[in-house]
């Protein structure tokens, strides 16, 4: 399988600060990446995606950066809120079908 890993298993930030969650991937042929948020007792929720022909994509309060040279992906959350507390996963497309490889996840805790 693919090696989709995260640099930090846990992250704590003050409410209102910006959060950055990092992810490393190993398959240079992967061309589609997704960030998911998972709250306790729920399934992963789509946040934002990016294809390999882009290096940056912005959503509402979130930005994903893709550095194909070093095979690195990051998720930036602006003005982090208590509701952002969750586990965040990056997912990398596989070689067949709509299969994705998920990292271990980063647990984000927002301190009020």
């Amino acid at each position, binding site marked *: 399988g693919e090696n989709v890993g995260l640099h930090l298993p846990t992250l704590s930030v003050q409410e209102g600060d910006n959060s950055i969650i990092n992810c490393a991937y190993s398959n240079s042929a992967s061309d589609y990446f997704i960030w998911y948020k998972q709250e306790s007792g729920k*399934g992963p929720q*789509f946040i934002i995606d990016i294809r390999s022909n882009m290096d940056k994509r912005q959503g509402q309060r979130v930005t994903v950066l893709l550095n194909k040279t070093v095979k690195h992906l990051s998720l930036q959350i602006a003005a982090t809120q208590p509701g952002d507390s969750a586990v965040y996963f990056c997912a990398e497309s596989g070689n*067949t079908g*709509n299969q*994705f490889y998920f990292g*271990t996840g980063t647990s984000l805790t927002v301190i009020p």
Partner: protein
Amino acid sequence: DAGVTQSPTHLIKTRGQHVTLRCSPISGHKSVSWYQQVLGQGPQFIFQYYEKEERGRGNFPDRFSARQFPNYSSELNVNALLLGDSALYLCASSRQVVEEKLFFGSGTQLSVL
């Protein structure tokens, strides 16, 4: 519109038993995928079905099988349950067969005793 629905939400089985998990995709989605999520880890791909055909299989033993019905709903079957099969089983749907975001259900929490 309803999201991806899974049943049951929780299940307790004993070793050696068989289990069937069910999933209904979002209306209009033809692809259904199954993932296993062990506590503290990311989801791991088990199967993908599209238009009732298997389009991908992860590194799981033959005790795991699945199928997709004409209405695009799906079942995941696991035979001869082992303690290590205890996990959250997630179903996800998408419109297309390749490289499109997955929409996940809340999962079935399976405990094998």
